[in-house]
């Protein structure tokens, strides 16, 4: 029993990721019939990047929903979705990326595939990591709002031209299962398959390339990391700056300097690896006597 509990504890993140993905994508009929769930729970957003056109999805993707509201004729501000993102962000920031996002899980699993040489980051990482904010502003906010048709409706530009999560979880299964959809695919589908293919290959080589460089949802949650109620703190009295935390961090963050980096997905590897137990989360911070009070 103790052994089992230890095993569960060692794989708790994977268990939560698989469990949450399974629960929020549990409409089995969708996979059988090549259709999607049409129940009222679809009005509620899920925290991760989970396409609402996935045959099993019970909830809505916040990025898709944001574009849908901003692109509609009647609304030019999305109170509902932005409010949801603010609640999730203020509570836990990018913890969602590390623990609850289905596409994050897929990238985690792909990275487990052995390869000759794994890269810590892509060349040009310092510039590339800002690309997700360009995508957020241009494809998620501005284009759906201002590139409208004659009746004033915008398109979900990010979903249409970039999102590999939608291609994988919705496009591929629906094209395979639904003959009507299969008959109308064209160059756009090929383009999206190409993006998905590149992301899959890169995910084997480098840890979570989509989350690092392209995901607008991760970009939004990342902005909350420094102040969210769940955050990390380094106990300066215990930290020797040995660098073990950065060594185990797949996102290559200097945790001892910036424990609440906007890139941190809160996987917890640094906390586990720290030989001095200097990295703690905010809930236990009150007991941490040596924690610095600066803005890190």
């Amino acid at each position: 029993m103790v052994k089992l509990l230890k095993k569960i504890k060692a794989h708790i993140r994977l268990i939560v990721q698989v469990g949450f993905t399974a629960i929020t994508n549990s409409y089995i009929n969708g996979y059988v019939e090549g259709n999607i769930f049409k129940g009222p729970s679809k009005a509620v957003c899920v925290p991760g990047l989970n396409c609402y056109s996935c045959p099993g999805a019970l909830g809505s993707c916040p990025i898709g929903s944001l574009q849908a509201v901003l692109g509609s004729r009647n609304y030019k501000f999305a109170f509902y979705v932005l409010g949801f993102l603010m609640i999730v962000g203020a509570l836990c920031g990018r913890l969602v990326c590390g623990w609850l996002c289905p596409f994050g899980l897929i990238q985690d699993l792909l990275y487990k595939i052995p390869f000759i040489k794994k890269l810590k980051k892509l060349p040009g990482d310092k510039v590339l990591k800002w690309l997700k904010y360009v995508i957020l502003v241009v494809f998620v906010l501005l284009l759906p709002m201002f590139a409208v048709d004659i009746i004033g409706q915008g398109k979900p530009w990010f979903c249409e031209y970039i999102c590999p999560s939608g291609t994988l979880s919705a496009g591929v299964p629906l094209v395979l299962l639904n003959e009507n959809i299969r008959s109308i695919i064209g160059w756009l589908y090929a383009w999206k398959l190409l993006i998905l293919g590149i992301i899959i290959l890169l995910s084997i080589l480098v840890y979570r390339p989509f989350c690092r460089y392209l995901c607008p949802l991760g970009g939004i949650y990342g902005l909350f990391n420094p102040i969210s109620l769940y955050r990390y703190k380094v106990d300066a009295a215990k930290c020797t700056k040995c660098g073990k935390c950065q060594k185990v961090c797949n996102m290559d963050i200097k945790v001892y300097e910036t424990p609440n980096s906007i890139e941190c997905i809160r996987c917890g590897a640094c906390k586990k690896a720290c030989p001095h137990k200097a990295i703690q989360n905010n809930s236990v911070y009150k007991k941490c006597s040596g924690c610095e009070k600066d803005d890190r």
Partner: protein
Amino acid sequence: MTEKRKNIFATGILCVGVVFVIIGVYRNEVHIVLQKAINICLECIGIG
């Protein structure tokens, strides 16, 4: 920023978020989300 201020700031954002959600529900934005989500999104799956 001290830890206490960070907590106050996060709680403030949380409260604004709740107010935003209520305004969104009141403005019937939920209907737009639901309508988009219960129909197969051709753009999302790469049909356009």
